């Protein structure tokens, strides 16, 4: 749905302010006994969290599927070629695990299971590429406007507001509509155009808190240059909330891509769950499984990234425990 990605952003942004403070609070005092850093503390917490372990397992599995989809299906099955005479809307054979007919065939006689496996790559790639682009761009804008303050901050914040005010999916639709061939990088870029604002806001808030710390003053007093202060001292200490927001948003970008495909202006050159869901809706009354399996796969993927982000946030934000 179009709402999700932008919604993820606002919800997370609403919490961001508190997260920043809390992260710093843990950082300030060493734990009794051996002093532990924020990250090792978080790692200790994560290893004992079933949600984290489950989601990590799922994500690793999905990455393997994305890399070598044919590993998981017996026989040589093409996800693109269908046999209408033999397999038109053939019902799933749930006993035949990992075979082409396991989850049935769609309206073009193509194996639904093979298409599920081969659709993973596009979804994961879009999710990761948008997240990377958004984190780099938003992170840089947030870092600069948070650190320099003054008129730089005012200008940058107003620009962020401008991009934030336009509905996120709408912008992607406008951009994509002008392309007739829509590959993974094109779709990713169209989502990143308006998607970077929440990261910029979180980064800015985080940097403003960190730059008042004593070690920044000390570094300045010792004559460190702006670049060194920014990237050696401020960035590593301000990046935690950004990572949390980015992981949670990743799931949202996967949904956004599927939504665009569902509306008919998504990927054109790859197999995509969104396209399959869109095609399946025409057979919803007679053959629900055509829609059900890609929808379930998509939801499971988004759920895995959401749970992962949630677990990381809880680990980095002790107050929410």
């Amino acid at each position: 749905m179009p709402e999700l990605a932008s919604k993820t952003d606002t919800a997370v942004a609403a919490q961001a302010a508190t997260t920043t403070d809390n992260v710093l609070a843990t950082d300030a005092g060493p734990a009794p006994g051996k002093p532990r850093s924020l990250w090792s503390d978080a790692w200790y917490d994560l290893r004992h969290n079933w949600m984290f372990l489950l989601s990590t397992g799922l994500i690793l599995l999905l990455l393997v599927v994305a890399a070598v989809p044919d590993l998981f299906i017996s026989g040589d099955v093409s996800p693109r070629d269908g046999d209408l005479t033999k397999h038109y809307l053939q019902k799933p054979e749930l006993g035949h695990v990992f075979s082409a007919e396991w989850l049935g065939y769609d309206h073009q006689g193509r194996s639904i299971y093979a298409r599920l496996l081969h659709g993973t790559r596009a979804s994961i790639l879009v999710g990761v590429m948008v997240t990377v682009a958004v984190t780099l761009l938003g992170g840089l804008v947030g870092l600069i406007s948070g650190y320099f303050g003054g008129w730089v901050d005012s200008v940058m914040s107003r620009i962020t507001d401008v991009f934030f005010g336009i509905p996120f999916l709408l912008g992607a639709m406008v951009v994509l509509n002008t392309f007739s061939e829509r590959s993974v990088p094109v779709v990713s870029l169209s989502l990143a155009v308006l998607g970077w604002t929440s990261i910029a806001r979180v980064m800015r808030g985080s940097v403003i808190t960190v730059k008042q710390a004593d070690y920044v003053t000390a570094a300045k007093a010792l004559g460190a240059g702006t670049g060194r202060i920014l990237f050696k001292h401020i960035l590593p200490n301000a990046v935690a909330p950004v990572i949390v927001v980015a992981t949670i948003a990743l799931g949202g970008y996967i949904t956004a891509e599927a939504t665009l495909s569902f509306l008919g202006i998504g990927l054109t050159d790859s197999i995509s769950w969104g396209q399959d869901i869109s095609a399946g809706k025409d057979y919803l009354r007679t053959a629900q499984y055509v829609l059900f399996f890609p929808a379930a796969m998509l939801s499971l993927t988004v759920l895995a990234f959401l749970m992962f982000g949630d677990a990381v946030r809880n680990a980095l934000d002790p107050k929410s425990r």
Partner: protein
Amino acid sequence: MGRYVVRRLLQMIPVFIGATLLIFLMVHVMGDPVAGLCGERRCDPATAARLRQEFGLDQPVWQQYLTYMGNIVTGDFGTAFNGQEVTELMSTAFPVTIRLTLVAICFEIVIGITLGVLTGLRRGRPVDTSVLLVTLVVISVPTFVTGLLLQLLLGVKWGLIRPSVSSAAPFGELLVPGLVLASVSLAYVTRLTRTSIAENRRSDYVRTAVAKGLPRRRVVVRHLLRNSLIPVVTFIGADIGFLMGGAIVTERIFNIHGVGYQLFQGILRQNTQTVVGFVTVLVLVFLLCNLVVDLLYAVLDPRIRYA
């Protein structure tokens, strides 16, 4: 207070101009506004050139933008691809979408905040864990899947609702589409309220209120909830704008002819007037909602004052 509002309104002007300019450029520079005017085929060069001149598309972009904004100030939003005035489209589309958004926001407030309070007060108990898991699932299932499934079950199989909404779109028919539209936000509102309530439960003013001997109900509603609502109000305020512009999928599934439908048509046909016009109104709604949210802070938390 009055001065604060005036200052905020003035700050809105550059953001408003920037946002309209951005969408104007995106629609205009990226696409070819004449492309959609000759049906499915490409326009022949002579017709295209005449159309360009007629619409003033041969002038530089900044001049086109100024002309467009000048027209908007006088209430002229241009014409859509089918020759209808954009203002006419707006007058039929916005009432429908406003009703849909109202239904969605009501669901968010009533169900979301109630669930949030219930789980926030019972941190770590089975109720809390199960509601939390349900919210995760609701967030991860895309709206278009939820919408299609509800439409199939309630509308087609059990016949409880009409599968597609009539053109009048009364409140009764918008209940299920509203719920679908609200579903993801609903889950976020629940989670935000839960976190906020759980955090504030340990605060001094709650302890004082309990120590005073106030009944539990009053402590929860008047003291705890009121102070925990700030992040929730922030979210819902921003959400109003998103729901109005983001209902494209929901409106498509349930065949509702609102803002999302018009925007979708406008984008597909590369009609600058429709897209920029509707987005301009949406940006205004979004900015005003933000202002109202900031003013609500002072109502919820008396420590916040606007000078």
